[in-house]
């Protein structure tokens, strides 16, 4: 099955996955999302588009990414563990898959300007990269708090020719960057594409972002069959907005014996109220254009998420995850900041791979899940990104600058 082949898991024509998804956006944006949906419907069946996308993934992003066994890490998990190495992609995470696809769509629509939101800066850097490659103008909205936390990524984006606009409204983090990008889009929709970075937002974003990331699951399934001779017992991925998870899940979604496990940012623990575990602890609502689980108070005001990982620090989640949770096809649980940082250090020391703190949540999930599977069990963990960007956090967390040891 190809990456863009329509499946029984596609949303309906208006973007609904069961009761989730849809379009909760101003009328002014409907024409733009209609145009995008129509263009994607054509592009996904157009061999020229599909081949160009595949060529960029191969020759620019460096796909296919490896599937690496992690035997020493696995000793701590009590079961066999394989890592899908999205950290080895150009720009250091899975984000490049979606960005290249949407940048090509932008060209097809004859638009010249791209806007994007970013939290930690990974999606912003990936977007700036694709825009540099394809000759598009790029503006990235980033919460002011995040521009301070991730100043190196701000410099990267600027080096790549993007304009970075610090967002000073609201909580000055990712959700406010999305708000500001939406405001820009309404005003400039004629020549501007909003390159949304996760599988959330109004239809068709959850569909097309997922499809651009389906390559992760397609490769992982082939690789594990070839290397281990069988399908895994579970596929494990971290879930903030949920794009890397939905990409790898889809490779196995029809293999009903394979558990799909999403690991959410538990922050300081669910009881503390300081977390980002939207699917575990959120309630239904509409945020940023779609119906999904959201973190909100009893008045429907969106509350702030908290995670040591800026990339998982989001009070919403892609609508297809809400659907997969409801129908029981996927399961979701949180791990805390401390558990994620322990896994971060463990993988670094045992396997020589420094994972992103986002991906460390999936690793911590594997450590929890492993013992129940036993030594003959088999896990595929999506290592969605590399940890270089997280060194500041690690230095502070482990006191590495003072001779501390993780």
């Amino acid at each position, binding site marked *: 099955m190809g990456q863009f082949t329509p499946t029984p898991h596609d949303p309906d024509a*208006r973007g609904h996955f069961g009761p989730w998804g*849809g*379009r*909760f*956006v*101003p*009328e*002014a*944006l*409907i*024409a*733009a999302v209609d145009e995008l949906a129509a263009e994607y419907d054509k592009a996904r069946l157009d061999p020229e588009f599909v081949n160009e996308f595949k060529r960029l993934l191969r020759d620019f992003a460096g796909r296919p990414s490896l599937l690496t066994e992690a035997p020493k890490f696995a000793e701590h998990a009590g079961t066999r563990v394989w890592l899908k190495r999205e950290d080895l992609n150009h720009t250091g995470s899975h984000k490049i898959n979606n960005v290249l696809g949407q940048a090509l769509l932008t060209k097809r629509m004859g638009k010249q300007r791209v806007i994007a939101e970013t939290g930690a800066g990974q999606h912003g850097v990936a977007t700036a990269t694709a825009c540099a490659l394809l000759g598009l103008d790029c503006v990235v909205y980033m919460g002011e708090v995040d521009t301070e936390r991730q100043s190196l990524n701000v410099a990267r984006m600027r080096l790549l020719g993007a304009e970075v606009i610090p967002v000073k*409204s*609201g909580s000055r983090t990712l*959700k*406010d960057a999305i*708000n500001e990008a*939406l*405001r820009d889009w*309404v*005003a*400039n*929709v*004629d020549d501007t594409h909003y390159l949304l970075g996760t599988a959330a937002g109004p239809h068709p974003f959850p569909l097309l972002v997922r499809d651009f990331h389906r390559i992760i699951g397609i490769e992982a399934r082939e690789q594990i069959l070839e290397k281990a001779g069988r399908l895994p017992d579970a596929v494990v991925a971290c879930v903030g907005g949920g794009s890397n998870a939905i990409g790898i899940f889809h490779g196995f979604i029809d293999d009903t014996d394979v558990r799909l496990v999403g690991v959410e940012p538990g922050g300081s623990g669910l009881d503390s109220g300081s977390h980002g575990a939207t699917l575990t602890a959120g*309630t*239904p*609502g*509409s*945020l*940023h254009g779609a119906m999904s689980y*959201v973190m*909100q108070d*009893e*008045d*429907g*005001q*969106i*509350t702030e998420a908290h995670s040591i990982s800026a990339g998982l620090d989001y009070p919403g989640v892609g609508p297809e995850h809400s659907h997969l949770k409801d129908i029981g096809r996927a399961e979701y649980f949180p791990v805390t900041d401390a558990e994620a940082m322990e896994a971060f250090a463990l993988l670094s020391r045992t396997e020589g791979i420094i994972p992103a703190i986002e991906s460390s949540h999936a690793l911590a999930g594997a450590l929890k899940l492993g013992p129940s599977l036993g030594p003959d069990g088999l896990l595929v963990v999506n290592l969605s990104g590399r940890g270089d960007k997280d060194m500041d956090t690690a230095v502070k967390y482990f006191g590495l600058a003072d001779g501390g040891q993780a």
Partner: protein
Amino acid sequence: MSLSDVFATARAESRAALIGYLPAGFPTVEGSKDHLRSMIESGCDLVEVGLPFSDPVMDGPTIQAAAEQALSAGFRVRDLFDVVAAVADAGGRAVVMTYWNPVLRYGVDAFARDLAAAGGLGIITPDLVPDEAEDWMAASAAHGLDRTFLVAPSSTEERIAMTARASSGFLYATAVMGVTGARDVVSSAAPALVARVREHTTLPVGVGLGVRSGAQAAEIAGFADGVIVGSAFVTAAGESDAAVRALAADLAQGVRSAVAPV
């Protein structure tokens, strides 16, 4: 009195209706009641009571800041009904303008029920399109509330027709592609959009986004049934009640001095 009466009265006087917006709870719950009453006394035919929301994607800096101030002062959704009731008790007419998530959270039917009980006439829904409004269609019908959906310069003919069919009371035409906020000149897209809307419906059409002066109101009154003013009232309310009254009076003069469209 219903929304259609508001527009019928204005039409009988050969003028446009003046519609003023202020968030409930800005600067305080009691303060917003005072300002809304002043808006009515000084010439607003209808007020839009805004529900402060944490993530107002359709709003520019002025209304964003007002919503933030109201929320940090402790505004609760239940206060909205209190503010609407204060307007109704003073003989004014009120609709609510709100992002959809707080309504979903409250319960669409419960929200409609409590708004109707407070004397509100309807809801303007900036991020709810008719495509997703099944529950609201039912609740508004059950509780006798009007539904004001928005049309934009980017709306297709098909969508304008569909949106008009789903609406009652009046249609809200966004004059520009952009967010709320006072602007110096009336958008050239507005008259064209209103003309397109007229092809599909006899519903009154209100034009908003960017209006702040009597002269601009007069210009819009030349082609629309209602002139909607938001950010300028918020700015005035940040100054003084006298500023709110002066602005309403200036705008009320404007809607009575329609300038024929160029």
